[in-house]
């Protein structure tokens, strides 16, 4: 299992899409850093001065692209296997299909989590430099650090959960496009329909629970849910979809 997992992590790291995502993230961070530096005034008392205490809110905002990237990386990881046919080669070496798919999803979710943490760390570092040289670090203390780390870990966790869901849907549909299409249909159509027609069901929607989890319940909702409850619900969705993916992967022909 360790060799299988190591191989999948290696493959994940070498993916072209991963390089593109990292490149885009670094570009976005660099542009953000420059804009903040230009707009922020280094002089005390001047307005606006970029305060590093804003970082948790910025990280909350970046959680959305991280979730989308997680979904995309998860879906395309298994989707590419089906498209290229490498799953056949792998199964002739390791025929225990449950092991194979579990190793893949673990590698994918761990990688996405680590990537999300790294991206946020780089963003935090750049903005820290902006604050140090052209803004202010006032209010940066242990409480702030705890809050910021909490948001970063929660955003990375959500990206990881999204990668598992993307992976599971692509496993069921056997290609990346199926997962991306399903994701778009869910977010653009189903969630909006539910909000419009069945407001009481809003408590079960992915984005609402994701918002509760990431904000720590700061935003006002029509329902009450703790951060932990939201996480458990989202993890349950991911686990259920993955379980369906495993059952189908075990039962299907690999042609």
């Amino acid at each position, binding site marked *: 299992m360790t*060799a299988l997992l190591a191989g999948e992590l290696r493959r994940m790291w070498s993916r072209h899409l991963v390089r593109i995502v990292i490149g885009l993230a670094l570009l976005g961070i660099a542009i953000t850093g420059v804009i903040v530096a230009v707009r922020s005034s280094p002089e005390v008392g001047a307005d606006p001065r970029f305060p590093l205490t804003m970082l948790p809110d910025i990280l909350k905002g970046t959680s959305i692209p991280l979730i989308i990237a997680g979904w995309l990386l998860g879906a395309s990881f298994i989707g590419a296997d089906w498209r290229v046919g490498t799953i056949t080669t792998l199964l002739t070496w390791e*025929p225990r299909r449950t092991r194979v798919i579990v190793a893949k999803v673990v590698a994918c979710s761990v990688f996405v989590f680590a990537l999300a943490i790294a991206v946020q760390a780089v963003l935090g570092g750049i903005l820290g430099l902006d604050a140090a040289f052209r803004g202010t670090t006032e209010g940066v203390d242990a409480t702030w650090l705890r809050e910021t780390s909490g948001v970063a870990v929660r955003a990375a966790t959500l990206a990881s959960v999204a990668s598992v869901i993307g992976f599971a849907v692509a496993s069921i549909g056997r290609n990346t496009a199926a997962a991306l299409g399903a994701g778009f249909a869910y977010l653009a159509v189903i969630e909006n329909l539910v909000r419009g027609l069945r407001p009481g069901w809003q408590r079960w929607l992915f984005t609402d629970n994701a918002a509760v989890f990431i904000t720590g319940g700061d935003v006002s909702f029509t329902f009450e849910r703790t951060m932990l409850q939201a996480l458990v619900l989202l993890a349950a969705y991911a686990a259920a979809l993955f379980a369906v993916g495993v059952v189908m992967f075990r039962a299907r*022909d690999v042609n």
Partner: protein
Amino acid sequence: MAVIEVEGLRKEYRSRRGRTLAVDGLDLVVPEGGVFAFLGPNGAGKTTTIRCLLGLVRPTAGRCRLLGAETPKDLSTVIRRVGSIVETPTFFPRFSGRLNLELLGRLHGIGRKAVGDVLERVGLADRADYLVKTYSLGMRQRLGIGAALLKDPEVLILDEPANGLDPAGIKEVRELLRRLGSEGRTIFVSSHILTEVQHTADRVAILSRGKSVASGPVGEVLAAGRSAGLIVRVDDMAGGLEALRSAGISASPDDHAIRVMLPPEEAATVTRTLADRGLYLTELRPDEVDLETVFLELTRESPKEPSP
């Protein structure tokens, strides 16, 4: 001991367009050692059978056993002893050939040295560190053969291993198969190119429309495929034909010669009959039956159409 056993294997694919019967009650026994050729035209069910053996496809009915283990249920207990290629081998295109093999090898504790040796053996040593996406079809096929050999397997299951190879590569594969077979391994090789296996295989099974239409040692299949005969050539073809027929010997014209329906050991009867009439042979040889002839006859005569 049978290395591969297939009993009543049936595989039906369902799609929106209906059902396709790929394998129809196939029985097959592959004994230990030597090269077993699994022949059949395209669409005969060879690849589906191999996929069933390797647990990639679930049979609709019947059972498969590989090295005594039921597949797919117990396949993992014997997979270390089985090397395989299924159709065109697929590898991670953004990894080098070497890394692809190393990652596969690690699954069974196979080290880098073995990978290097295998790459040398299949003639990829100088391109081992290039990305697979830069490989030609033939190079990918060689890498596939390398992957199949990497476990130093007792059984090799090779589905059309010469696909995409140039004539020199096909010859190399043929020699490799012969060598591996002589080492005591069991080589189960499917093909629709008969020259690829004719002089390599010890045993053969011919598949047509999902069913085995002939199976056994190559000599037996050839003998059963077409009656023995002699090819005779004389200057006066019409006279020779008449002389043989009037002596009660069954004979017929055959491509500027006469085909006589007598076994080769009765050649003396033919020479005597013709010499008695003053007709002297310019050629007398056994009518050798090749695998291609038997294959074409057997696969053409198979009566059943696949289910729609």
